[in-house]
């Protein structure tokens, strides 16, 4: 049981006696014992939380001016860009914010892969993270449809058509999703409603994610358990100030793009109003979907392609059991470390393939990339069984003490 926290401020104490929000805050954001050896790769969780907040705030203010009707959606976005005070800023913050939200989350996920943060007792934490990731993808997909440009329309058409691959009920499901016989106004309307809703589901999942984290406590670069208070420091002020510094660096990059290269991540075709009679020469999703797009296209069979694409994410749920090694951090796992970098390079390769039309060498590259992606998992299982890990330090505090003894 937590001990009764006493606050100096009378008002704070009065509220806390009736609803312990201040005690909770103190417990989880001030006193929370955090390993003292976390490196900067641990900043990306809070950065992802920052981006979720930015997206919700900019999204709400954009929604004050956006019209979710196929006849006027495109012009309503252009009205925001041209007539609404700071509308261009809200729009570019939101569009580029999506990209940077995925950047922080991808780095956060790969940090988890490298340091074994998905292993016991953090399996549920990992699962919640994957659920957040899936929700983000649904939100981003629907959000991209809203401006009703050529890529909005045709990207929606291609991806919703995939569901027709489901045997027996596929076509009914697609008609149900569309609310009609093609992507049109009913589809746009419901995508707007769901796009507005999902981020709050994400907020709830993030809350659970942080609760799960606080139950099992943070991992660290050495991957070894905390042995006692000598291994940890309170979250405030050490990690609050380190996170603030990380926010500063991150904002410089993010806002640098917003102000000076706001269309870098975008697709010129989406500045053309949607035309159901004209298909763009190359239909491409946003960059954060490219590896999955490549996997989808690498399988000649439509249903198999869809199954492979979804499996690429589903398989991550099983990672805590696929990877049988008791050692968490890749720092001490020489084989796993190599395979990790190979996996990362493979993801970039798949992204490159996804960005280009499936012609020539790229077809084979996509198939090899897909095979390597899925091959990663049985390979990890094997490595877990046969790998001889490097000797682990006795404790988190020990390697540092050892160093200072040498001085």
């Amino acid at each position: 049981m937590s001990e009764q926290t006493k606050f100096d401020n009378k008002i704070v104490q009065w509220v806390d006696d009736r609803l312990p929000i201040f005690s909770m805050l103190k417990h989880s954001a001030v006193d929370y014992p955090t390993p003292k050896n976390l490196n900067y790769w641990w900043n990306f969780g809070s950065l992802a939380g920052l981006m979720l907040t930015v997206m919700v705030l900019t999204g709400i203010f954009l929604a004050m001016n956006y019209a979710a009707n196929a006849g006027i959606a495109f012009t309503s976005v252009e009205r925001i860009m041209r007539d609404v005070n700071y509308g261009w800023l809200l729009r570019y913050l939101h569009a580029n914010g999506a990209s940077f939200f995925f950047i922080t989350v991808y780095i956060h996920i790969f940090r988890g892969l490298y340091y074994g943060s998905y292993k016991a007792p953090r399996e549920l934490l990992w699962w919640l993270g994957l659920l957040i990731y899936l929700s983000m993808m649904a939100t981003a997909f629907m959000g991209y449809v809203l401006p009703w440009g050529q890529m909005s329309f045709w990207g929606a058409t291609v991806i919703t058509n995939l569901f027709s691959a489901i045997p027996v009920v596929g076509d009914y499901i697609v008609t149900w999703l569309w609310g009609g016989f093609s992507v049109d106004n009913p589809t746009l309307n419901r995508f707007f409603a769901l796009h507005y809703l999902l981020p709050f589901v994400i907020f709830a999942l993030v809350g659970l994610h942080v609760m799960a984290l606080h139950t099992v406590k943070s991992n660290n670069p050495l991957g070894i358990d905390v042995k006692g208070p000598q291994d940890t420091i309170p979250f405030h002020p050490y990690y609050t100030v380190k996170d603030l510094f990380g926010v500063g660096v991150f904002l410089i990059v993010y806002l640098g793009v917003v102000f000076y290269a706001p269309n870098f991540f975008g697709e010129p075709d989406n500045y053309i109003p949607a035309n159901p009679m004209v298909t763009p020469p190359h239909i491409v999703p946003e960059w954060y979907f490219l590896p999955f797009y490549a996997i989808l296209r690498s399988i000649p069979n439509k249903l198999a392609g869809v199954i492979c694409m979804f499996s690429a994410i589903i398989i991550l749920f099983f990672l805590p059991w696929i990877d049988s090694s008791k050692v968490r951090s890749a720092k001490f796992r020489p084989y796993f470390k190599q395979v990790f970098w190979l996996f990362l390079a493979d993801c970039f390769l798949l992204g490159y393939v996804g960005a280009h039309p499936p012609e020539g060498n790229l077809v084979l590259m996509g198939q090899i990339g897909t095979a390597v992606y899925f091959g990663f998992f049985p390979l990890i299982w094997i490595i877990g069984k046969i790998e001889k890990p490097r000797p682990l330090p006795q404790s988190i505090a020990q390697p540092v003490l050892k160093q200072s003894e040498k001085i």
Partner: protein
Amino acid sequence: MRKLILSTLAAISMAAAVPAVAEEGPELEHQNWPWLGVFGKYDQAQLKRGFQIYHDVCSNCHSLKLVAYRNLAEIGFTEDEIKAFAAEKTVKDGPNDAGEMFDRPARPSDHFVPPFANDQAARAANNGALPPDQSLLVKARKGGPDYIYALLMGYTDAPEGVTVPDGMAYNKVFPGHNIGMPAPLADDVVTYADGTKATQEQEAKDITAFLNWTSEPELDTRHSMGLKVLGFLAVLTALFYALKRKVWSDVEH
């Protein structure tokens, strides 16, 4: 070190993938547009010359529906000049108290009146080709202003053995090379109000600048705000770093 190299390589290949459409056609020559770069901004005199080209040449076929006449104030036209430009065109309004639709001269608050009533009329007048609206043209084409400029300067005779269909023209830069628009610019196609020599190259530069403005009217504000925001953040981040070092100075790490 190896990690750093690998992740940098990875980032570069990611960046190469991001401008997603495959490269087609000749490499576009990069022009030194005045609005590029951290301190870049529009040359107002150039924008006014570009508007003159839109007004005298392009507006006969191309609409500019997302721009309002009042926006011309941002490139230096006076209220009277704007009222005059607007009043050249008529707009359908109504119904009046008798229930009829009527014509009235356009006002500054109206958007640019398109040259054709609808897409079908535009096609009928242009050999079946639809002259695209120009409000977002620069942002809607890969290569942006470099592409537009190269296209305007890219009309040549068809190479040996290549036949160009009737009603089309050969263009080095246009995808497929057969473009429905005849070469719109040539030396002295307009006489500039500010006296600048109207070579085809000058005209192409000026109309491209104007079209970049119609696509990105907020650019000047965006750049100047960006400079202030990034400068402020640099200072704030440095402060946070100093504070971080200070706070962590008593921890073995």
